[in-house]
């Protein structure tokens, strides 16, 4: 029986939690203003940007559960580095028949964006990629053409930011995002059978893992704070209203974690379609509860940059809109549910095949 309830990412979590805690300690209240090369080297040397990819494709090996465990740690410690983005880009590379780079030749990815557009002719690309995370720091930006209006057969586009006009901005969490303008810019094109949908699903899983970690972080932080903070002569944890905030935080964190780990465990792409969308949608909604409850339990101190809560909640805000917003996902999932032969089977079947048939 224990095969079904093993905790698959637990080994790597145990091995790496010290690294994360030491490098981004719990008492960090603000992010460093710059991309820390030393930290990034440590991250890449540990193989975190390619974990979950087979070694023969240049990956660090390990399972999807291992990747999820790493990203939960990254979320838990609000790591101000593009671990998830680089890992996603490495996966895209491998799914495009290439070997994922490691060391200095890492890539970030361009998320699907309504405002993006790209046209490619004779190896020259023209268009825009908006809000590319860490697009100013990455040596390479990968974009799945079909996700950016470049036509379904466009494959994976490899962009060198140095050849683009780059405007750097800040996202909601204060992390750098780059606006890339391409104007007959030479790009490399890789063939891939990956659909925009498959890419988005991987993006959802990766983002939900980060969110799960950040929710756990916010729950832990709040539980600590309410024991220490006193008002009216006793720790605020003694107030029923504060307890309700704490309970909600734990519920949201436990729920998100349990689902993201469940999805990683199944690891079967045909089965993940449903569970990953459910995961991201639920994570988005749970994150809304978490930010509200954590801030409310913290009071004024949580609204300052001097205190570390904002590092978690600002990232949660950001990730809610990455790879699937609530309305998009709810609409998609709703159509899926409405066209399923049986709603009960959709919920209860572990691996629902086409037409609701149980495999």
């Amino acid at each position: 029986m224990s095969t079904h309830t093993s905790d698959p990412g637990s080994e790597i979590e145990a091995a790496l939690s010290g690294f994360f805690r030491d490098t981004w300690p719990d008492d960090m209240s603000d992010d460093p203003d710059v991309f820390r090369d030393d930290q990034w080297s440590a991250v890449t040397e540990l193989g975190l940007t390619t974990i979950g990819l087979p070694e023969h494709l240049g990956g660090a090996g390990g399972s999807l559960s291992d990747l999820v465990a790493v990203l939960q740690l990254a979320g838990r410690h609000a790591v101000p580095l593009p671990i998830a983005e680089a890992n996603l880009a490495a996966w895209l590379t491998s799914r495009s028949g290439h070997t994922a780079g490691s060391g200095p030749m890492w890539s970030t990815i361009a998320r699907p964006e309504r405002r993006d557009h790209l046209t490619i002719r004779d190896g020259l690309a023209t268009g825009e990629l908006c809000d590319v995370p860490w697009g100013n720091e990455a040596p390479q930006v990968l974009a799945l053409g079909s996700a950016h209006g470049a036509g379904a057969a466009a494959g994976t586009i490899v962009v060198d930011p140095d050849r683009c006009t780059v405007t750097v901005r800040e996202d909601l969490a204060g992390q750098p995002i780059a606006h890339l303008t391409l104007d007959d810019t030479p790009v490399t094109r890789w063939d891939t059978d990956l659909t925009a949908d498959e890419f988005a699903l991987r993006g959802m899983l990766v983002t939900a893992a980060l969110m799960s970690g950040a929710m756990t972080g916010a729950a832990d932080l709040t539980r600590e704070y309410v024991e220490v903070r006193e008002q009216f002569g006793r720790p605020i944890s003694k107030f029923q209203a504060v307890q309700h905030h704490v309970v909600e935080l734990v519920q949201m964190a436990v729920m998100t974690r349990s689902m993201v780990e469940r999805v990683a465990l199944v690891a079967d792409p045909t089965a993940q379609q449903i569970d990953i969308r459910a995961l991201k949608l639920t994570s988005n909604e749970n994150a809304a509860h978490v930010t509200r409850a954590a801030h409310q339990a913290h009071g004024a101190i949580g609204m300052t940059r001097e205190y570390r809560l904002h590092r978690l909640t600002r990232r949660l805000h950001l990730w809610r809109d990455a790879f699937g917003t609530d309305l998009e996902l709810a609409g998609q999932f709703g159509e899926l549910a409405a066209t399923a032969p049986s709603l009960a089977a959709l919920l209860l079947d572990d691996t629902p095949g086409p037409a609701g048939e149980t495999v």
Partner: protein
Amino acid sequence: MKSLRPTVLTADERALQRTVRNYLQERLPEGGYPIGLGISAAVDRDFTRDLAARGWIGMALPRQYGGGGRTAVERQIVVEELLTRGAPVGFHWVADRQTGPSILANGTEAQRSHYLPGIASGQFSFAIGMSEPDSGSDLASVRARAVPADDGWRLNGTKVWTSGADTATHILGLFRTSDERHGGLTQFIIERDTPGMIVSPIAFIDGTQHFCEVVFDDVLLPDSARLGDVGAGWGQNVGELALERGGVDRWISLMPVLERWVATIAPDDTLALTDLGRITARLRVFRGMSLSIARLVDEGESPVTEAALVKEMGTRFEQECIEIVRHHFGRSPRPDSSDTFESLLAQAILAGPSWTIRGGTTEILRSVIMKGLTAR
């Protein structure tokens, strides 16, 4: 708190799921049975007997007592299929979910040998006599009293809101045997025909009569009717409540309504589809959590906090779902409608508020969770 480790169904478990599903598809044809929502399931002794014949009652009880010797996950699989159909499980529901396991854990060998086969065969139906007029969330304030008398016990007092007492063959009651707040409570099993026990239905808000008052007027019981040690009732009761809370019935009972709602949604109704998406996604996530809890039980754990955590969210979520479905229904549903969707929705609207009260109110559950967290 235990982490809710991820799990999936094995091939054998999926096979069981298919078997149950196919059986119920034939046994319960649409329109051929009274549909109930979770705990409000109809009582149908024939159906109970048919399930028992297939080994689907008392599944997790040991074989030596007539049970199936199967796992909590296997039981959950059966229960999921039953509840999503709103099957008439009312007769055996309480016994299967909580009284059986409780008697197994706390009963004497004689009690096990007598009651458990009766439960597993679908002959015995239990109701739980816990709450009293002045003792709801604060169970320790129970006042119904059992005093020693003639080698046995004499019971006096009143239990209220005892679901299913009208059709139950047995009542499992909590009585005060001393003034010690928690240590002064003891459980007794009272057979339905025992002189001095009067069961009177209390009309529930939806007009049904399964909610009962049970008056004990000098009821005499032999000592063999006592379940567990004198003074052990509180702990046993808490254990039962955990069983009551952990199940899928805390988020799945609205499925008969949801299934019928889905059938009414027009393909271009973005609003309804968006709402449906939100609901379904969350139910799917709850399902994963319930499965993990069942696995913990099968590993010998007692996931009390986890069960409370899911029950608290699940019952609140079901209430939100009712709000959403009624929005889309677009008119006031009639409880007496011949349209199943309409009458079920009306029932759900009326009975829904009880879901965050029964089996521990939202407020009580949050304090159970909080205690579980700080105990870590």
